[in-house]
């Protein structure tokens, strides 16, 4: 039985009709056109589907859309202000931290949540934070460098 729910995404309210069995990932991509969040493994292991719910990183492929209603959801689309990239996005660009880009939205979302909890991390802590996000292209070195740089920039800005 479909239900009309409100999803609060990146500060906007979206009214959408969903079946209880639809995941947040499916609704974001297929109903709302927010295709920045990617489907990788669809079983919570690869991290490509990572979004934030109330600031905490979650797997949108394992979240029922109906269970996420009325909560503050942040997707990759919510990070930039117009043409001004978020410092983490900017750092990924400057440090060449992406090749195909498929893992990138998930990497950036997990990094955003991580840096909010740990604004001055060690490299070991960064790598531990990324353990649930798989990249098949880069070998992770540039990703870690980009996160270190954006952490520095975000500390400076504060």
């Amino acid at each position: 039985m479909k239900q009309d729910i409100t999803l609060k995404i990146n500060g906007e309210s979206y009214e959408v009709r969903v079946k209880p069995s639809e995941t947040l990932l499916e609704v974001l991509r297929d109903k709302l056109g927010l295709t920045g969040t990617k489907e990788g493994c669809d079983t919570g292991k690869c991290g490509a589907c990572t979004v934030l719910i109330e600031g905490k990183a979650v797997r949108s492929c394992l979240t029922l859309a109906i269970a996420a209603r009325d909560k503050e959801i942040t997707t990759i689309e919510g990070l930039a202000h117009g043409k001004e990239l978020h410092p983490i996005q900017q750092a990924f660009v400057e440090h060449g931290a992406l090749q195909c880009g498929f893992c990138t939205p998930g990497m950036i979302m997990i990094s955003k949540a991580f840096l909010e909890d740990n604004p001055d991390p060690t490299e070991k802590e960064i790598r531990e934070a990324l353990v649930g996000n798989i990249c098949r292209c880069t070998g992770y070195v540039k990703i870690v460098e980009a996160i270190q740089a954006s952490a520095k920039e975000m500390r400076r800005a504060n």
Partner: protein
Amino acid sequence: MRDFEYFEPASVKEAISLLAKYKKEAKILAGGTDLAVNLKHDVIRPNYIINIGAIPDLNHIDFDHGKGLRIGALTTMRALIESTELRKTCPVIPQAVSQLGNPAIRNVATLGGNLCNASPAADSAPVLIGLSAKAKIVGPDGVRVIPLEDFFSGPHSNVLKVGEILTEIQVPLPPANTKGVYLKYGGRGVADLAIVGVAIVANIEAKNKVCNDIKIVLGSVAPTPMRAKKAEESIKGQVITKALIDESAQIAANEARPITDNRSSAGYRKTLVNVYVKRALTELIA
């Protein structure tokens, strides 16, 4: 996913009555990190999903200094890891669950879910059994509290009857000089399922290394988390020496009953039990 009807009960009572009504056609949703995967893979085909995530009073870490610890079934792994009180009074619990999955999973995965899913590899089970934890279960016939060790009945199978839900894990306050550790081997890193898990909780005299009490609990080497009781007996009351560690580790490896599956062979699992029991005991007397 197959379609289902969806409920969000506001109380334990409401959840129980839904479960009692729909029986085997209903499944509980908490964090969803195991349930959603099983739904996608058609491992289970429930017609009713009961989301208990909003029920108040199931998300707590309470310290009852006389009696011990009470952890609500909806407490997330992250909450267990971040609790400064827990890190002080019972650090082996956060130490164990910090090895479960990955940070995003730990944000939503619940203690109750990990236990009720009852994987033989469940990362929260061995240390809690080692701490002599009890499971509080509420159902249509009332409340019962059973040793957590008796909660598991087989791979992905627990003793909850129709209509019952796990509401709380109760951990008696460990006596002074109790230390514990959970070691897990997953193959590549902590984001893997345990191929072998070893939890040891022991009461060891600091001065002369006499072991007053010990529990050795193994994961992934039997249909359920299991106690290596013969290994425990070989250590209890003894001074822990390197020779005793070597001997007891081998006894534990012999007691383990692993299978060969796509992640590892039975023989390798037994070898890992030996290695990890050794490492855990060595760490506890350091």
